[in-house]
């Protein structure tokens, strides 16, 4: 009897604590999404289609959100420099096409080709971030911006010449969008796809994400992964324990960059197009806010955060336009997306982080 009440109390306390950890904004977002799901059938939106859309978009974006994890773990903060990884992915994608690979092979080759780029760019990026510890996030943002605008010139100058990639008239300079029809459009999504009525699940794409997420989880359980978490949790402790803090941070940045490269490739296979030039510019912000919505903070993130966050974020992005449109005939989804995602980042930035920054 006595024990029972004790347990009850602790349960209540624990629930309270869990709620506090969860945070008010997250609660509002979850509630909002639930409300959308409940409202959807009433305003005449087809729920299975909506769920399909949400899952689809989840499968496109989850890897990019996963790319946040290593850098958060090593204390480099939120990876606003994700565009650097995206650029590696784009280089891989365009080169794979240029070299004439088609079908599923082109996807595999794109990943393989983008890897050395990710390693080189990631090393440079990591080196830079090690020089400016404490000011990572602002500089990461601008490294991303500079690299995107630099690549804008490169897309025009590099000697690509495959007819379906370059501007028809000039015969050179890559197009803004390149269709992936016949290359790797939907290669993952169509693999093992399940179709039940209006509901279709891109099993292959989800499995690919699951594989990467598993590898990430496994990495965090190894010696190096443990060191990475410790560096993020308290760099001085790690230094005192003989860890080469700079090296661990460097590894995390390279991992983030490589995952960013994979992320954009997965996104492209779902979306069906390669987008060049200014397209990668603002791609970091949605990924950053997704992981924060999932419950991560500036220096703590887990795979669960990635999954929950991507689902919530993409759920809102896909559900709001239809539900809002059907309800009040105003498409406010874009504005809601901007407010929600940036509001979430602001919330995370103003939290006092315990221990080391």
């Amino acid at each position, binding site marked *: 009897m006595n024990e029972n009440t004790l347990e009850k109390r602790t349960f209540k306390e624990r629930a309270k604590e869990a709620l506090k950890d969860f945070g008010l904004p997250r609660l509002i977002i979850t509630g909002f999404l639930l409300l959308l799901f409940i409202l959807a059938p009433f305003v005449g939106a087809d729920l299975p289609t909506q769920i399909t859309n949400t899952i689809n978009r989840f499968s496109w974006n989850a890897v990019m959100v996963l790319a946040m994890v290593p850098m958060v773990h090593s204390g480099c903060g939120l990876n606003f420099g994700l565009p650097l990884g995206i650029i590696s992915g784009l280089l891989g994608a365009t080169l794979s096409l240029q070299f004439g690979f088609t079908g599923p092979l082109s996807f595999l080759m794109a990943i393989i080709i983008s890897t050395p780029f990710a390693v080189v760019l990631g090393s440079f990026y990591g080196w830079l971030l090690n020089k400016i510890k404490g000011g990572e996030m602002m500089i990461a943002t601008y490294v991303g911006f500079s690299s995107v605008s630099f690549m804008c010139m490169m897309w025009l100058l590099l000697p690509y010449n495959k007819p379906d990639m370059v501007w028809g008239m000039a015969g050179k300079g890559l197009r803004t969008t390149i269709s992936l029809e016949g290359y790797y459009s939907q290669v993952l999504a169509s693999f093992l796809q399940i179709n039940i009525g209006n509901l279709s699940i891109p099993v292959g794409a989800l499995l690919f994400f699951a594989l990467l997420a598993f590898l990430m989880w496994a990495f965090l359980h190894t010696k190096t992964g443990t060191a990475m978490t410790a560096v993020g949790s308290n760099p*001085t402790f790690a230094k005192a324990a003989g860890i080469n803090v700079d090296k661990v941070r460097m590894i995390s940045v390279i991992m983030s960059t490589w995952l960013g490269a994979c992320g954009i490739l997965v996104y492209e296979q779902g979306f069906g197009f390669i987008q060049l030039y200014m397209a990668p510019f603002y791609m970091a912000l949605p990924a950053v806010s997704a992981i924060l919505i999932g419950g991560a903070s500036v220096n703590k993130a887990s795979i669960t955060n990635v999954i929950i966050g991507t689902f919530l974020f993409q759920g809102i992005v896909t559900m709001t336009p239809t539900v809002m449109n059907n309800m009040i005939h105003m498409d406010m989804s874009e504005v809601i997306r901007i407010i929600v995602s940036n509001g979430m980042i602001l919330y995370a930035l103003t939290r006092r982080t315990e*221990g080391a920054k």
Partner: protein
Amino acid sequence: MGNEQVPLLEVRNIKKDFFGNQVLSDINFTLKEGEVLGFCGENGAGKSTLMKILFGMDVIRETGGYEGDILINGEKMNFSTPFDAIHAGIGMVHQEFSLIPGFTATENILLNREPRKGNIVAEIFGDRLTTLNYKEMKEKADAAIKKMGVEISADMVINQMPVGHKQFTEIARELSKDELKLLILDEPTAVLTEKEAEALLDSIRGMSRRGIAVIFITHRLHEILSVCDKVVVMRDGLVVKDIPAKDTSVPEITRWMVGRNVDNEAAKEEPVKKKGEAKVIMSIQKLWVDMPGETVRNVSLDVEEGEILGIGGLAGQGKLGIPNGIMGLYEAGGKVIFDGKEIPLNNPRKCLDASLAFVSEDRRGVGLLLDESLEWNVAFPAMQIQNKFLKKYLGGLVQWRDEQAIRQVTEKYIDELQIKCMGSKQSAKELSGGNQQKVCLAKAFALEPKFLFVSEPTRGIDVGAKALVLNALKKFNRESGVTVVMISSELEELRQTCDRIAIVSGGRIAGILPAAQPSEEFGLLMVSQVR
């Protein structure tokens, strides 16, 4: 001269405890106009707390206030903020500089008290839009500098000044306050060269002639004798002596500062080995360490195998810099030879590889992963340095964390060191200070080192935990034969635990004595080279 009967400052029965830990009990003293009072005592004797009470610092109120009365000119005062104290005529120069680096001396002297000129905009948007009156500022600053009697350039920017001038700027700032009646100087000469210190003493005499009373805290005892009218010695939260300066001497003051009842001392065990027999396991040569506030200069020291060596000294003299420098946490230079091999400095990994271990004085900053579990805290360095608690797969390619082995070792130390916790998965930040300290020790023990640095192992923990920690260290030394170097501010603790004690003063080793030597000897060493 006003009323001789009513002193400028009277302190009556001041008591203060921090959460039940009595730090001041029954402090009484008086101070007359123009009198200079020297204040001395070891670190932790309660000087700073008393000064904080006098100056109405927030920390006192936040920790439950104090008991007793402070009277100024016979009137009872109750300061809720330092500004009240300033208003009542008390000025204080803290140990750390409180100056704006890019401002000139003038601007700093008159910070937030600048003379101003009104204008129309200020009528609308408030006083803060009045413009500064640079001419008057200059006059006031010059007047304050003149009052001090030391020449400093009023137009020089602070970050281009030598340290001494910064100190004088601070003093001038206090002097520029018209209402100033009592000036508290907290170790003002610590950063000064001898000449500057002499100038400061002169200026203190000058202030005294002008009727300003001065409370002068310093470890340079001869300064006290040369400038003060009266000396108050504190020890363990009590005023042990209140005596005119002319009636005492440096050795006497030292004795009062460190002296304790003889029966309080632990009966020393015989040293395990006699001096000279043991081999030198670590030889430190010409070490310098750039640790802010704990600078080490040119230290040479030999540590013998199997002993417990204590390093003591006053705060800020550099004793903490020695282990932090050797272990690579702060920039260091010189030479360290361990077990016949030279250990490269500025590389923590190399030290750990050589089987050295370090328990830092900064538990929360360096010692622990506050957000992680006890398991991680205990096992982490051993895992990273010695590949313990790892399972290998794919021919060693994958080194997987062995959660079970980690739990076992953590639980072993939880039992052994009696760490009070809810289980090995609890996060470190939820433990009390004493238990956190035990976790730090467990972390070091898990490395099974040959040589252990322990820095301030008992700082901020309660008496019970203190004894446990010290016993654990002794046991570790005696049973595993590990050489231990223990750094502590508490001399008695060192004397109870160590075989030999080195005293650091002014960043250098002032002397090494067997632990059985009387306290006064150590006391003299402590203040010998204070700078």
